[in-house]
């Protein structure tokens, strides 16, 4: 099957071997950049890519409905998000009619970061929250607000980690609008969620020829075992090449008793009529809107297909349990808007 897929891929994307990798978006600080050319996704990772010809990075995985190798997927995903970094909010609004804000608010409020019982004699206990693939800061800012303002707990630190430096840069520039105390509790880190032992604080992108995604060879530090209270990932995990590896890393960095929470698009097929309407909207309208609004049909096509390929709620719950997390008995997930999105929660047990 794998051998047969490769020639098909090469036939379909003839430029895969020849063209070089050209990320489109190079000035993440410029919010009004209008893309002029239609970017093609038929690219090959260039020599700047850090892939060695080792087996793990040549393993087959999926990129939307196509089959690519793991390293190719990383590069292709990077190109998608680099190009949509500026219009990420717009993209989310279009895909979910603005409902993603409600989902994110619900996600953060039900996690209730920073909560401490008032009656306890000990001061408000510190918490370290890690927000993965949260480059633009949507979830992190909400976490900070909930912890510092709603729960009045200033001892909560949030680390935003993302493999894409463009997205992180957008987040950093947005964080300038936060109160100073919240900015002080926030840190930006470049990392690959599948290996959090190699991280680097965000380094601004200075030139057009720089690679916009994190290169593990430039890592300066790493996340230690048992160091995180809460690990959140919102609308990011479906882009990972190796989801079980990311879950294993989450298990490693969480403290015993720590909570893993994932907000992701999921399957809405418990309501067949609603589901068919939703599917039609996703596959027909969203790429078209992407073409009209951002001039980037392929990115939106990829995003819609990646939602379709993501495992269903039960399978993802089993993956989470397989990584060692304990889940709740009523399914282990919570459906939002009929299953269009789902929140999966798990706890690392105390051994």
């Amino acid at each position, binding site marked *: 099957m794998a051998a047969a897929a490769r020639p098909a891929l090469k036939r379909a994307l003839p430029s895969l071997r020849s063209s070089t990798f050209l990320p489109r978006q190079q000035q993440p600080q410029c919010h009004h950049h209008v893309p002029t050319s239609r970017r093609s996704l038929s690219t090959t990772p260039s020599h700047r890519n850090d892939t060695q010809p080792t087996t793990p990075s040549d393993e087959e995985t999926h990129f939307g*409905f196509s089959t690519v190798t793991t390293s190719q997927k990383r590069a292709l995903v990077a190109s998608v998000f680099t190009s949509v970094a500026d219009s990420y909010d717009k993209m989310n609004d279009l895909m979910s009619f603005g409902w993603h804000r409600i989902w994110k608010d619900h996600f953060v409020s039900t996690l209730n970061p920073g909560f401490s019982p008032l009656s306890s004699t000990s001061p408000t206990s510190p918490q370290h929250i890690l927000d993965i693939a949260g480059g633009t800061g949507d979830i992190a800012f909400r976490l900070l607000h909930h912890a510092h303002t709603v729960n009045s707990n200033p001892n909560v630190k949030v680390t935003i980690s993302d493999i894409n430096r463009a997205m992180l840069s957008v987040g950093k520039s947005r964080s300038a609008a936060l109160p100073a105390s919240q900015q002080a509790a926030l840190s930006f880190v470049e990392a690959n969620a599948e290996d959090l032992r190699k991280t680097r604080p965000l380094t601004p992108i200075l030139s057009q020829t720089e690679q916009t995604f994190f290169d593990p060879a430039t890592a300066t530090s790493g996340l230690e075992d048992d160091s995180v209270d809460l690990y959140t990932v919102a609308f990011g995990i479906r882009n990972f090449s190796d989801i079980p590896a990311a879950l294993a890393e989450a298990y490693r960095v969480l403290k015993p008793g720590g*909570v893993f929470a994932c907000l992701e698009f999921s*399957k809405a097929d418990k309501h067949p009529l609603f589901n068919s309407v939703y599917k039609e909207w996703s596959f027909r309208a969203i790429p078209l809107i992407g073409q009209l609004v951002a001039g980037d049909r392929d990115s939106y096509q990829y995003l819609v297909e990646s939602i379709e390929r993501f495992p269903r709620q039960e399978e993802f719950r089993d993956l989470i349990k397989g990584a060692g997390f*304990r889940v709740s008995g009523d399914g282990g997930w919570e459906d939002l808007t009929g299953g269009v999105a789902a929140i999966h929660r798990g706890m690392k047990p105390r051994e």
Partner: protein
Amino acid sequence: MASPAAVNCSGAARRILLLPTTTTQPATRSFPGRLSAVTSRPITTLPSTPRTKSKSTPKTQPPTTPPPQPLQTRRTYHSTTHPPPPSPFTQAETTLLTSALTSHIPTHGFTLPSLTLAARDLSLLDISPSFLGPSPVARLIHFHLYTTRTTLPSLASQHSDLLSGLSVSGKIELLTWLRLKQNEPIIQHWQQALAVMAQPSQVPVAVRELAMLADEIYYLAGDKSVDPSWYTKRAALSGIYAAAELFMTTDKSEGFQETRRFLRRRLQEAEELGGAVRSVGEWVGFTASAGVNVLRSKGVRI
């Protein structure tokens, strides 16, 4: 499905096991829960489609696994020999919630601090109760309802000497009273808990637990009805129990005597009503059959 034991089957018997019943109606009935296990397919890779030529029609999508049937936590068929179904609470949940129920609810009530303090007792983190779901407090109350209902059979066997001398209605009264007394340690927080369970998202859970409690009480009392009174009896008991539980939250009498009297009065009223309905039904039945017989005796061929 070929099993090793089926090899011993004769070919005819094996074919018959697959034979359709009639030629007119295929025997494909969809039962509420399908017997065949849902096959979960791994993420398969598809042959790639050219991305540059995007058509307006949706591209071929990967085969999706069929949606599984919704998880029912109602008890339906109780096997007398097979092991019982698993609890709706996992081991980790049970540990945390039991600790909260026993140590912290009497002082802090059904609130998040109780859960957080229980998590600290178990050397977990303050954030740990968040894994219970979107509403950890509702999960805690559901756990209390579940444990009180499932410990009712053992309570009944402890009081078996008292129960044995009673009629069915007497047993109902005693069992309901035993269940009400299980709320005693936390009764001062129960109104708050009822308010939480009255939220629209929690109402299905609360109603289901109440219905299962009524069924449990009737089963332990030895009721063997299989006609429509099965429904009316359980509905009546659910209503009476809910009213008595609410009454108990404001009852300040010694040993909750007022609640017990309230319960007795409601059960008596229900019995009288049931008796009246039965009498009316009997009268209607007798009158109708008498009328039919009179007509037949006059020669009308019915």
